[in-house]
């Protein structure tokens, strides 16, 4: 049997990157501050993970304004959704493999 660990996505090794994906898969658009609050991380930490996810084409960034304040929101891409789903399936097959 193939080792199911191979199917795990390396990008989702990070708890924060996986957390961002979990939030974006059930919410159309989420802004930076809400992500920060929900994941309980610092600005710099979250920003670097978001850049990583964006570079991999898993999330889209929209820069906007609310009044004069910047409001950056994030949403998941088709590729991101697929990668997340595959990762979940890999985790599930690992659980089945253990039993």
């Amino acid at each position, binding site marked *: 049997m193939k080792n199911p*660990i191979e199917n*795990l996505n390396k990008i989702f*090794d*990070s*708890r924060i990157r*996986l*957390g961002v994906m*979990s*939030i974006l*898969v*059930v*919410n159309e658009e*989420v802004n930076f501050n*809400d992500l920060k609050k*929900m*994941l309980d991380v610092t600005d710099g930490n979250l920003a670097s993970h978001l850049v990583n996810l964006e570079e991999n084409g898993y999330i889209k960034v929209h820069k906007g304004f609310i009044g004069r304040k910047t409001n950056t929101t994030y949403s998941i891409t088709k590729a991101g959704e697929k990668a997340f789903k595959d990762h*979940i399936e890999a*985790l*599930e097959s*690992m*659980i089945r493999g253990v039993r």
Partner: protein
Amino acid sequence: MDSHHPPQETLQDIKRIMERSSRFISLSGWSGICAGICALVGAGAAYTQMQSYRAGRYGSGIAAADELTTNLLIIAAITFIAALVTAFLFTWLRSRKDDVPMWGRTAQRLFINTVIPMAVGGIVLLRAMQWGYFELVAPGCLIFYGLALVNGSKYTLGEVRYLGYGQIILGIINLYWIGAGLYFWAAGFGLLHILYGAIMWWKYERGDR
């Protein structure tokens, strides 16, 4: 967390984050219990008024019936406001404890999706009363409130759906049992709320303190 972390835990984490980010989960069981108590007190007050109307203490004729209607509407309004305020209070306390914004995106979505069926129901019942169909008020309240709960349950604790089913079933039975409206109303808004609140408290909040 990483690949060395047990996959079960990772999956549970993912599920928790998804729920927390998309549903308003700070509804407190105490809100249900208090709303239920308010409803029972309100139903008791309405019952007393109706008894004294039947005993003739309101006098007789159209004026007496109008006076009873006015008093019942006042009782209904006070009950509704009291239930809303107490329900709001306990949920506000819980959301503060959970560190979830009371008026965040999840709460807004929950609000709009429950208010639409309730507002429509309110208009329908007002028209029904203007046409003299008072028998429809109790089953109508139960049915529209039940629909609002079923609709809203997608945006909060999933169990709210079952509370909604309960209200709808009571409302439909009441449609075929006209005249017992107040009892059905008390059972739905009073007892079901208290039962639901107690279960929710037991399930989610018991360990909090």
